[in-house]
């Protein structure tokens, strides 16, 4: 699954931006800069709405950015990393069953991972991947004041 995913991401990166991104990122895999919080307090559970607004980018996933426990969660982490988004808050739902259910109820979305931008539900793995492929993700990040790293690696065309 991971191999397949990596090749998809690589192909995508090439087709969208015309260059390979693998070299650039290969040395950074272990250095996830994402803040990872252990969400055990009941206060956090009671109000998913509050916690999704705590950071520009909030991810609910299985495992951690440094060690994703599911291929789909890993895909989200890899896509964000490809865009240079390293500072985000990630919650490991495997450590908290209430949160796992709570976020699904909150967003009315049946699966994990889930990505929020500025407190607003963006989607899961499929949506993030398709936004990445279409270029929409660069725009959405821009709205958050985050400059995608892909813009800096893009070959000047005109």
């Amino acid at each position: 699954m991971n191999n397949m995913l990596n090749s998809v991401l690589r192909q995508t990166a090439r087709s969208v931006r015309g260059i390979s991104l693998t070299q650039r990122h290969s040395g950074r895999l272990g250095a996830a800069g994402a803040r990872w919080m252990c969400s055990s307090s009941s206060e956090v559970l009671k109000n998913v709405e509050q916690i999704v607004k705590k950071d520009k980018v909030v991810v609910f996933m299985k495992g951690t950015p440094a060690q994703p426990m599911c291929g789909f969660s890993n895909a989200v982490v890899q896509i964000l990393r490809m865009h240079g988004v390293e500072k985000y808050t990630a919650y490991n739902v495997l450590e908290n069953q209430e949160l796992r259910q709570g976020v699904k109820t909150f967003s009315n979305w049946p699966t994990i991972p889930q990505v929020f931008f500025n407190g607003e539900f963006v989607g899961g793995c499929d949506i993030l991947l398709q936004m990445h492929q279409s270029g929409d993700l660069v725009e959405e990040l821009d709205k958050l004041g985050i400059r995608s790293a892909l813009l800096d690696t893009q070959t000047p065309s005109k």
Partner: protein
Amino acid sequence: MAVTTDHIREKLSAEIGAIHVEVEDTSSSRCALSFKVLVVSPQFEGKPLLQRHRMVNTCLATELKEIHAFEQKTLTPEQWEKQKQQ
């Protein structure tokens, strides 16, 4: 009750007017029950991705309770034609 690819296909066709559905059972790896679907429906026209996916999720709400992993791609007939040509 096990969810079958035929069942998913029929439900998507009947409830959200899908004119083409590809369902792949991707369960073989680590997950017990997972599916990947491509749904083509004129009802997706003019709707953002999130809303399209929500339509599929709503349609398959009962089934999704039993499905562990679910990947989806949602296209309008026009987008599908384009994709086929590529």
